């Protein structure tokens, strides 16, 4: 009886589903977080009888075969890269990306990671860093005595120094885009890394065709839709119960078979 194993794959799939949904709900208030959806597909099939096999000497063929599926597997989790809402914060170093693109940050252990979380800070040296203190690439250092920072929609960072009425242009923020955003690997702390599946980063100036613009004083909220997450949670729970019902049935049938003398 294969049903026990088949139903077990179903229960495991629904567990993965619940794990992904609960992570989405847990991150409903995480800046720049993108919700994921687990996607499932059928496992291999055992072909008990081949389609088109001869059934009689006269040459008639079997019109349908007997395919018994072995259950379900997780095909992948897809990150939904839709825009999150923009929340006004008034903080001059809060930047939201409106459109496509990621900020690149230099990791302390080397290499780069990418983020949509634009809650930026200043290091003791005046360098623009992210919340974990990682440098934003390309590196921008604000001069001492900076009283105010302006970031244009196209990423030009200007600093007002003391009483000078004319700002000093101190750098240009860039955004990185990827052929396949969904293929990036999340590493926690709102950071993503490029992978073979995502392709290499393409650095671009904000506002170029196909690249988003920057909005100073805003943060991008997560794109988690709580209502649909809760609905999915209920659907997953019911599917879990149905698979356990299949296990129960298989168990009862086996116990009936044991009564045969």
């Amino acid at each position, binding site marked *: 009886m294969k*049903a026990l194993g088949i139903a077990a794959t179903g229960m495991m799939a*629904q567990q993965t589903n619940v794990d992904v949904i609960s992570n989405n709900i847990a991150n409903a208030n995480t800046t720049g977080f993108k919700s994921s*959806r687990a996607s499932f597909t059928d496992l291999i099939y055992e072909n008990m*009888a081949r389609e088109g096999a001869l059934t009689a000497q006269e040459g008639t063929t079997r019109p349908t075969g007997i*395919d*018994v599926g072995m259950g379900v597997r997780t095909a*992948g989790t897809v990150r939904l890269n839709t825009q999150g809402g923009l929340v006004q914060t008034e903080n001059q170093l809060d930047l939201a990306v409106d459109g496509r693109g990621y900020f690149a940050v230099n990791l302390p252990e080397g290499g780069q990671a990418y983020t949509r979380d634009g809650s930026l800070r200043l290091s003791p040296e005046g360098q623009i860093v992210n919340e974990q203190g990682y440098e934003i690439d390309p590196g921008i250092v604000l001069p001492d005595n900076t009283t105010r920072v302006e970031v244009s929609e196209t990423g030009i960072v200007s600093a007002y120094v003391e009483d000078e009425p004319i700002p000093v242009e101190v750098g240009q923020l860039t955004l990185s885009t990827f052929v396949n955003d969904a293929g990036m690997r999340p590493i926690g702390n709102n950071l993503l890394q490029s992978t073979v599946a995502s*392709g290499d980063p393409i650095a671009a100036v904000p506002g170029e065709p196909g690249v988003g613009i920057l909005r100073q004083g805003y943060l991008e909220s997560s794109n988690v839709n709580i209502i649909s997450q809760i609905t999915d949670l209920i659907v997953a729970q019911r599917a879990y119960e149905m698979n356990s019902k299949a296990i129960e049935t*298989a168990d009862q049938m086996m116990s009936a078979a044991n009564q045969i003398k």
Partner: protein
Amino acid sequence: MDNSAYVSLSLLTALERQLDVTANNLANVNSSGFKAERVLFESYLQPESGTAEDGGTNYVLDRGSYVDRRQGALVRTDNPLDVALNGTGWFGYRTAEGQTAYGRDGGFVLDAQGRLVTQSGAQVLDAAGGPIALPPDIGGTLTISADGTISSPGAGVLAQLGAFDLPQIQSFERIGGGLLVPPADQDAAALPDAETQFIQGSIESSNVEAITEVTRLVATQQAYQRAVNLMSSEDDLRKDMLSRIGRPSF
């Protein structure tokens, strides 16, 4: 020897198959584009074993399984690369092994080369049967119209998704990953299906009807129990017969 034990046995075997298929349907209740599987049983009449004039013994034969082609519900996902089919057509795919396969799973992603692929890595075919590649810089801005045309505001028309008409789908073999492949001897030149509409931002959910499947579970179990009971009563009869025959009659 009586046939009744073997008749029951043929039913038990068939019901186990029924349970396996039902369990697989239930396991795939959330698999996008999954089409439920149904089993077909038929009776096999063995005329020689009959004693009555019109008699014979009917055994249950496991005849085949077929694809339930009904449309699954459309679930909105807002992902620009999720495409649902509304109609009877099928997506065409090319698997990693170079096989042409068909299915209804429209949860697509782009690979690093910009090719449109399924999450299992099979390439999605266009209306002419070739793979679809998209330029790297269009990202989330693409639109897919009801006839499958993929376009973006900057680059215009890029490709056209294919929907194929497969009247002979029942003879196809399932290979997992939501894919069905034509039988080896059948060189399926799939014709485009103009009726089927593409719906962007939605996914066709599995067409497994949970209530039906759970009901089938219950019915399968009851039928199994009946067949087991039939076997035991047949066994009791035989035991009774043996004890009576062996008894001296004085």
